[in-house]
Each structure stands twice: as structure tokens, then as C-alpha cells.
């Protein structure tokens, strides 16, 4: 198990919600050293299992927003306030809640970086919209750079 986890969260069958898994799929074509790549449908217990024992987590997810294709970079701390939101599907607690739960159980991941891509449409049956498809290529490069930073940080430690 690598100390760094890249987590692509989303449903590839629901339009731009598939942005996270799409980035992970692109990373897999030329798998980066020093990180495990995992897809997630957001189900909380599996998310927690994936987080277990990681030092660093890079999370890629779609977001609702006014500017489709825009890329938001957030830290784990910035995600914190989102735990008050009620998740759309409540059997899945949501990514922010999963991270909060992970922390509350006394095994917080110190280093959490989030790449959120604002989507245009989340309609079941659709693929990625063109503007999001372009954004995931940029996010792929950003995540590769982030993995490299994590690898060096692990080595230094």
C-alpha cells in the first residue's frame, strides 16, 4: 500500500459526475509511482476503508457550480464546513462527511488535497460535457504534479 491515495469520486453514468473516475482512468494509462489509484461511488464505508492508513489523499470530485469546467483546489480544512450539508443521497454520507468521520475516529489523514471540477450536467446516461472533458486533462497534469510532491515529501520524511 502506498502512503498516497488518489481517489476519484463519482458516477461515470451520470454526466459530469464522472469527472473524478475519468481523471483516475487517465492516470492509469501511465500509472504514477508512489500512489494508489482508487475509484469510489462515494459509499462511506468503502471510502473509509480506502482512506485507512494513508498519509496523503488527493481527492478528485465533481462539484455543482456556476462555471462549468472551473477547477477548484481545496485543502482538507476548507472541506470541513461542507460536512453540515445534507448529501443528496443519504445512504452515502458524502465525501466531506466521510473525511470528517475518518478524523473523528482518531485516524485523520494529515494531508488532504481536493480537486473539484464544476460540472454542467449530471443527467443519468450522459457522458462528460466537452468543457469538463477539457478540464479533466488539466486536472490530470495537476494531480501528477501533486503525486510527485507527495512522493518527495514521503521520501524526505
Amino acid at each position, binding site marked *: 500500500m502506498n502512503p498516497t491515495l488518489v481517489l476519484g469520486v463519482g458516477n461515470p453514468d451520470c454526466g459530469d459526475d464522472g469527472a473524478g473516475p475519468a481523471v483516475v482512468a487517465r492516470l492509469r494509462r501511465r500509472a504514477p509511482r508512489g500512489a494508489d489509484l482508487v475509484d469510489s461511488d462515494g459509499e*462511506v464505508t*468503502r471510502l473509509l476503508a480506502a482512506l485507512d492508513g494513508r498519509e496523503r489523499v488527493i481527492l478528485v470530485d465533481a462539484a455543482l457550480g456556476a462555471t462549468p469546467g472551473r477547477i477548484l483546489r481545496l485543502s482538507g480544512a476548507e472541506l470541513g464546513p461542507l460536512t453540515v450539508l445534507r448529501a443528496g443521497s443519504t445512504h452515502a454520507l458524502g465525501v466531506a462527511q466521510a473525511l470528517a468521520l475518518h478524523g473523528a475516529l*482518531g485516524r485523520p489523514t494529515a494531508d488532504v488535497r481536493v480537486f473539484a471540477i464544476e460540472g454542467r450536467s449530471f443527467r443519468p446516461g450522459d457522458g462528460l460535457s466537452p468543457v469538463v472533458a477539457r478540464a479533466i486533462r488539466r486536472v490530470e497534469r495537476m494531480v501528477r504534479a501533486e503525486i510527485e510532491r507527495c512522493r518527495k515529501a514521503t521520501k524526505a520524511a
Partner: protein
Amino acid sequence: MSAKRSRTIQVDALARVEGEGGLLIRTKGGAVTQVQLRIYEPPRFFEAFLRGRRYTEAPDLTARICGICPVAYQMSSVQAMEEVLGLTVDGPLRLLRRLLYCGEWIESHVLHAAMLHAPDFLGYESAVHMSKDHPELVRLALRLKKAGNELVALLGGREIHPVNVRVGGFYRVPAKRELLRMREPMQVASDEALSLLQALAVLEFPAFERDYEFVALRHPEEYPLCEGRLVSNQGLDIERSEFERHFREEHVPHSNALHSVHRDRGAYHVGPLARYSLNFDRLPSLVQEAARAAGLPPVVRNPFQSILVRAVETLFACDEAVRLIDLYEPPDRPFVEAEPRAGVGHGCTEAPRGILYHRYRLDAEGLIAEARIVPPTSQNQKTIENDLWSFVPQHLDLPDAELERRCEQAVRNYDPCISCATHFLKLTVDRE
């Protein structure tokens, strides 16, 4: 607070249930005047788009109705198809299906009981809030859930939307040693399920009972998962093929999910309480003892105790998994086959939330001409509303926020799966 005043309690979006729905309750002068479980998640038309598809596709298509209980959909659909084709799936293949279903029961029950329903009893908004004061309960649940996930992944091919079930059996069956690797984890899970039951047994349960008509499968020897006659505590005793002669679905304006009712007796109750109360004698004696020690009688009419019955069934599923793993000898072939033929087939199995009924009519080429799916939440909708008709008048002295919370808890007694029912929650209590 005066009980005479008229009030409205409205929950626009019910939390900790699967799918989108709400609740509206109106009271006037201490009496309830309206209860609506409002299901506004859009209908999903699965029965329509199954038409024209091959019979072989039904297990994978219907599995997509629900992310929580895909195995239930696979089990009911293959059973119906095998009835049309005249196939008998027995021996190790039957054993593996039962084992796979145990995995899904563990996943589904633990998620609901410990993560979604327990916060109601302990006074927390969510599992995240609960975890700060009760980390051990949450950790226990996560470990148990993981054991269920692993069982489903091993037999179903993957954790999310398993793909290994086919009409006639499986695409691939495990080697004996693969299954034996799960023996130790399932034994540990059994101990942990007992701990979960003991942890939940100390909760306080509102004094509330109703005289339900319980409907569940009953098998000559086993606690029911896939097989048995459909029975009730009011004299029902029928084959699964007779389901539609005794039950019908009706449309109500406030719900995108059909309400299923008994043709003569109206609302009925499916799920853990029904299964347990009709089949207590089919539980292994150790599980019976654990249930008694947790304060459960052989018939449970308090829906709030469903959280305990889920824990009892989790314990059963873990023990049953160990038993089945020990019995397993790999079959010669992973599936049995037959030529498609025209006919009608029925499936009815015990999903975690209760009986899941399927009926398909196939043409001579094996294409689906007609499909009918009645999920457990459709069957429980009217019973959920009836519970609230009785429950709310007993608690009108509570302030709105507290009454709303208790009503949501009452709805969650059923672990409603709205996504299944619309193939179908929000709360509104209106005190006029």
C-alpha cells in the same frame, strides 16, 4: 405546548434514507388529520425499458435499481427466469447464492442499524456527530460492513453492482480455498455482530406496538432468503406465483411509488420484523438465545425494535456464512442452461427490507414481453403512514422540532429505499 393547537410538521427532505422523499403531517385539536409519505424522486420506468430485452439481461439491468440491494434484484430476477426455463439451481450453486445474499444482508443491515438509525436513538444528527462520543460503535460497524463487502466482492465479482450472477448460476464460481479464506473473517464478524446486538440492546425504545399483518417467506427448514411459501400471521399461505391474486398496487397522488396492499386487508408489513416474527423457530438456537438476551420476544410488534432485529439478522447471516463456507464443494459447472421458451415466471426473495417480487413474461425467443417489480418499500409505504397515524397523537405534547425528529425516526424503522420504490423522502407536520 397546547395539544389543541393545529400544527403542520413538514420535512422537505428526509435524511438518512435512500432516495428522495418527504413527510407531511397535519394535526388539528389533538387529532391527526393527514399523513403523507411523499415520494417525489422521479419514477424510473424500469419495467417499461425491460421490455424487448433478453431474459439473460434482467439480473444486471434490475440490479441497477438499487446500489444497496443489487443482489436482491439479481436473486428475484434469476428465480423468475429459471421458472420459465424450467431450470433447477441446487447444490453448490444454490449454496453460493445464499452466501452472496448473506453478504448483502450484512452490508445493508449494518449500514442502516449502526450508521443511519442508531444516531436517532442516541440523539445525534448523523453518524459523523455520533462518532465523536461513540467511536467504538462506528468502528465496529465499519469492520462488519467490510466483511459483508468482501463476501459480495468475492462472489459477485466486485463490491459495487456485482456482475457475476447469471440465469442458471454464476459466470464464475470460487475454488474451495478462495471461499475458505473468508471463513476466519466471517467468524470474527459473527463475534462482532453479537457485540453490535449487545451495544444496541441498551437503547431506549418508545413504547409503541401495532398489530401488523406480517408477510414474509417461510421455508420448511431454513431462515428464509431465497425460497419458501409466502405466509402471514393472518392466514396467508400461498406460492409466490399467487402474489398478484392477493396483493395489488394502487397509485396515490402524493407518491411516485405505487402503494401495495392486500386485496382484502389493506396495509401489511414486510422486512426484518415480519421475517423474524414469522420465522423465529427457524433461527439457530444460538441466535435465538442472543435475541432473547437482547430483550426480544419471538414476535416483535414494536417497529422501533427493528434496529435490534437487524442486528439479530446480521448475526444470523454471519453464522450462516460460516456454515455455508464449511459445506461448499465446487460444482462441475458454474451454471446450468436451457433453451429459452415462452412463459411466465415469478421470483420472490427476502431483500434486506423485505420481500421483493418479480414477474416476467417471455416470448419464444426469450425476449421480455412484460415485467412487474414490487419492491419492499412500496409494500411498506402504507404501513409507515399508519404507524404515524398512531404515533403522532401520543406525542403531540412535544415541540415541533422534537416531534419532527421522532417522526423521521419512525420512518427510518423501515429503512425505506426510495430509489427502489420509484423505480420512489422530505417531513411536513402541519398543526392547523
